[in-house]
């Protein structure tokens, strides 16, 4: 029996190659996601250890909530005096892209991808982990160093001076004094790493007399834990903690791992989709191939093979395919990982070099998934094949008895309903955790897809007839025959189309949700923002604290306010609080005031509350609420008003004066400004251009540009959807081409007859191609319907006050995708169509 199995595989090489390809793709994505995340984890693990290598203990400030206050610089000297301490140095790190050097050609280093970071130089290279490659350490004002990789890449030369974008505006003439290496191999993973002196660091991104953290090395042979206890004694009233090297390394690793996991999970999602889609293709291939072998099966039954033997033989075939496909998939996975790395690099999000790690877990999983998926999809066809009556099979090659159509429809409908029920529970039921929600919605999707595939043969005939009508009209007899072929075997059409259905439904859902959120958000922003300009730091760079004041002082605007955020304890809970110029609220925003009034610019110790928060705090207009900041500063704020609009502000709003008194955050996150009547944004363009030259790190958007930037963000998320589309379409096309090739083979005699009575090769090819397109369109229609349903569900489940909850179905995009899929199908059908056209008429008739 095994020999027969092997012979069968050898006889149907091309066909099984295509089945294999589907499995390979699925397994390949799973493997690539593990190869990439394992490799990156190893790289970043090593990096984490490098970073903390010379630091035995780290003192860092703590606070009950919010961003802790920095440590006093004096503490460094005090710690140095502790017994057993070998050295202690301040650690200072800028925010990402807070400082940006301007290259010789006047441009800044692009900030998409790895960040630019600036540190205070540590003379102790054990603690600092940086060494000078060339030049001298930056210890004077306006001196800086850069890691040698970035310096070479961006053309920075020692001895030259460069301008810097800083939070204080552009500062001129920083001397480039040294190139450095991070650890031995300068493993910067793409970042640009710079140093300035401690004093410069304090001036540019810290506070004078304070340091962010203190890194400590202990004397050789001394127990770090014992030293830590002694250091604790000198901390005094400073709220700070002492952590050891292992803790810091672990934290660093965890932080990196979080990012790696996101990449890994996206890839895993792709993998699951492609594996799931593959199942349909594998199933279809087995079903068709076995259908063609009915006569042979009948013969085997007649000469004494029992049903179980036949079944085992089919499953054995599946196992062999599974093993081969998994092995190829394993290799392909490594290739896909390399390919994706190259893609990331091409789009500017360079990944660090990582080792290729094929762990035992990855290998085992590849084989389990590959074999499992293949065998699972062969079981039903194997059962059907084994169940045929030997005599019938030999006599006229009886078709494998199809399952009762009505029964199938009922089962499909039940599965579909179950999927919808599970999905509704996930979306509208009690709040689930992220993982539980993903699993719930995932299984809902699987149920819906299975249900649709089971039930859709019932509509395959009428639907392909309708879809095929224009084809039959336009393409003459070939079109009419294509239409007939697409609907002659509804189950095959349905299963073949399933792959495309799944792909398109995911894409449609993405589009529907994306567009709905876009338009809802657009309306909400238009409703609640009346500012002409929205200004924020580029790539999360901080806005210079002086910026809003300078804007206000320019006299170009009717009203300007900066928005800064900090955490504070309000009532019993810690919340984010927004500080702004209260007097500008009326002109810049529409916060939909429900009670009270908006205070003037000079009001002190007042607060505006969103109505939900007011209800939480049981506060009414005129009541006072106590507030406590990170610094320990407290105040009693009088509730001046209660507002309803949550688009821009959900936080409690306080006047700038409250933050200033509390020593809270000084830098604005963003700034809003409105022009006086009769002045247009066009009038102000020269002023804005000048401003952008002075502050290159600032992005000045008009209200419509601001709205556009929201849409761009959503569009960039839709890119993932598009990638998913490409993947799903590729797999689906393989499936369609595969089924078509099998159908052509099955219909050899019919094709021969058509050719004999005068169908030209061209007409034959056209017939096959348009059959493929009709199958694809059938899948597309179901997919778009299912996707719109999913999209509607998700949009309905989104909170209405922040996303608006209104449904937009982007018909042009969807039509575009469907047309794209149809065109791709025409291309995919090229080979089977060519084969059909080339059939030798006489051979075909005699077949």
């Amino acid at each position, binding site marked *: 029996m095994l020999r027969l199995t092997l012979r069968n595989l050898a006889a149907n090489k091309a066909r099984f190659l295509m089945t294999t390809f589907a499995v390979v793709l699925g397994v390949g994505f799973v493997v690539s996601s593990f190869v990439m995340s394992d490799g990156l984890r190893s790289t970043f693990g090593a990096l984490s250890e490098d970073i903390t290598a010379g630091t035995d203990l780290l003192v860092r400030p703590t606070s009950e909530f919010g961003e802790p206050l920095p440590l006093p610089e004096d503490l460094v000297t005090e710690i140095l005096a502790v017994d057993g301490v070998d050295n202690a140095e301040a650690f200072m790190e800028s925010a990402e892209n807070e400082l940006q050097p301007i290259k010789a050609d006047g441009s800044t280093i692009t900030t998409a991808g790895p960040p630019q970071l600036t540190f205070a130089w540590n003379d102790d290279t054990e603690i600092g982990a940086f060494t000078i490659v060339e030049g001298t350490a930056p210890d004077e004002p306006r001196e800086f160093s850069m890691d040698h990789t970035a310096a070479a890449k961006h053309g920075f030369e020692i001895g030259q001076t460069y301008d810097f974008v800083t939070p204080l505006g552009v500062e001129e003439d920083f001397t480039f004094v040294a190139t450095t290496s991070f650890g031995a191999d300068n493993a910067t993973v793409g970042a640009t790493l710079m140093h300035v002196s401690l004093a410069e660091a304090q001036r540019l991104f810290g506070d004078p007399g304070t340091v962010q953290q203190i890194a400590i090395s202990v004397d050789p042979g001394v127990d770090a834990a014992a030293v830590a206890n002694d250091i604790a004694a000198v901390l005094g009233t400073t709220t700070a903690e002492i952590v050891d090297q292992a803790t810091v390394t672990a934290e660093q690793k965890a932080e990196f791992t979080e990012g790696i996991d996101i990449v890994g999970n996206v890839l895993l999602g792709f993998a699951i989709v492609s594996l799931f889609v593959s199942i349909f293709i594998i199933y279809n291939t087995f079903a068709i191939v076995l259908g063609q072998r009915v006569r042979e099966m009948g013969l085997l039954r007649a000469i004494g093979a029992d049903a179980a033997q036949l079944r085992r033989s089919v499953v054995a075939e599946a196992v062999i395919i599974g093993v081969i496909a998994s092995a190829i998939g394993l290799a392909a996975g490594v290739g896909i990982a390399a390919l994706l790395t190259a893609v990331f690099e091409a789009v500017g999000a360079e990944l660090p070099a990582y080792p290729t790690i094929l762990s035992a877990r990855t290998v085992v999983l590849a084989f389990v998934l590959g074999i499992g998926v293949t065998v699972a999809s062969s079981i039903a066809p194997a059962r059907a094949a084994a169940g045929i009556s030997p005599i019938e099979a030999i006599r006229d090659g009886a078709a494998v008895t199809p399952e009762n159509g009505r029964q199938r429809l009922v089962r499909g409908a039940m599965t579909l309903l179950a999927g919808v029920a599970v999905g509704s529970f996930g979306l509208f039921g009690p709040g689930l955790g992220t993982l539980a929600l993903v699993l719930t919605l995932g299984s809902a999707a699987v149920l819906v897809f299975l249900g649709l595939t089971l039930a859709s043969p019932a509509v395959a005939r009428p639907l392909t007839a309708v879809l095929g009508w224009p084809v039959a009209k336009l393409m*003459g007899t070939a079109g009419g*025959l294509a239409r007939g*072929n697409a609907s002659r075997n509804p189950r095959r059409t349905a299963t073949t189309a399933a792959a495309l259905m799944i792909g398109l439904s995911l894409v449609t859902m993405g589009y529907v949700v994306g567009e709905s959120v876009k338009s809802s958000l657009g309306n909400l922003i238009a409703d609640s923002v009346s500012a002409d300009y929205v200004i924020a730091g580029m790539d999360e760079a901080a806005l210079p604290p002086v910026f809003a004041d300078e804007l206000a002082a320019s006299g170009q605007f009717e009203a300007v306010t900066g928005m800064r955020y900090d955490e504070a304890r309000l009532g019993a809970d810690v919340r984010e609080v927004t500080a702004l110029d209260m007097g500008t609220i009326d002109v810049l925003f529409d916060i939909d005031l429900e009670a009270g009034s908006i205070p003037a610019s000079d009001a002190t110790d007042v607060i505006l509350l969103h109505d939900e928060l007011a209800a939480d705090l049981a506060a009414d207009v005129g009541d006072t609420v106590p507030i406590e900041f990170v610094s320990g500063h407290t105040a009693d704020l009088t509730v001046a008003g209660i507002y309803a609009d949550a688009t821009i502000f959900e936080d409690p709003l306080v006047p700038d004066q409250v933050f200033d008194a509390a020593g809270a955050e000084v830098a604005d996150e963003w700034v809003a400004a409105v022009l006086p009547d009769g002045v247009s944004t066009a009038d102000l363009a020269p002023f804005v251009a000048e401003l952008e030259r002075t502050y290159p790190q600032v992005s000045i958007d008009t209200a419509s540009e601001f709205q556009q930037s929201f849409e761009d963000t959503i569009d960039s998320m839709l890119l993932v959807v598009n990638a998913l589309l490409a993947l799903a379409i590729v797999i689906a096309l393989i499936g369609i081409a595969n089924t078509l090739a099998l159908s052509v083979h099955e219909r050899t005699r*019919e094709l021969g007859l058509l050719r*004999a*009575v005068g169908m*030209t*090769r061209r*007409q034959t090819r056209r017939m096959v191609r348009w059959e493929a397109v009709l199958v694809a369109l059938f899948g597309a229609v179901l997919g778009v319907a299912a996707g719109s349903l999913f999209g509607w569900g998700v949009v309905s489940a989104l909170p209405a006050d922040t996303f608006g909850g209104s449904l937009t179905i982007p018909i042009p995009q969807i039509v575009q995708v469907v047309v794209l899929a149809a065109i791709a199908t025409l291309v995919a059908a090229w080979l089977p169509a060519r084969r059909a056209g080339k059939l030798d008429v006489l051979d075909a008739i005699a077949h």
Partner: protein
Amino acid sequence: MTQATVTTEPAARAVGAKKYYGEGDTEVRALDDVDVEFERGKFTAIMGPSGSGKSTLMHCQAGLDTLTGGQVFIGDTDLSSLSERELTLLRRDQVGFIFQAFNLVPTLSALENITLPMDLAGVKPDQAWLDEVISTVGLGDRTDHRPNELSGGQQQRVAVSRALASRPEIIFADEPTGNLDSTTGTEILAFMRKAVDDLGQTIVMVTHDPVAAAYADRVIFLADGKIVDELLDPDAEQVIDQMKKLR
């Protein structure tokens, strides 16, 4: 009727037709210098033992297969000068086919099967002629049915109708009754005879069956790729005797 009374040019003819397979010792001469003419408006049967070359002759004469040497003509068109596409169009427009089995496209109704060659050509069938053919064949109200809803005999009648419907120069039939029981076979043969007598159609039929051959005006006997004999207005007895000689 005798050959001498026919003055028009033949509907089809082969001149020095050769079809060889293989080379050297293994060379097989399926057609070995065959000259034959198929008269217009006549029913010709081709007989011979298995491997005599009768199917090869028909396939080459119908433009389904190509010759190693010599020429075949449909009307005055030399098939050896035609491209694959021209051959296809010739089959579509000037030749009708009836095969032993699998004569119909399963996705098309009986009527659509009948008009298929004309649909492929994009020409409108002559409705009066079509009605005449269908009523002659006796399909009546079953023209809307799919092939799998028709009996074997009905399917074969549809095939004959399709061959007739486009009024081809010539119809080639390859064992048209081979798959039918004798009663149904007789019906089909009678109908083919009628098409020749009443409609003036030219038919060439390859067959094993002496009874079927007896419906023809003329029987050509092939053996080892050569025409060895022929009978005019044969009856089944004569055909059987002739066949016995060939074995």
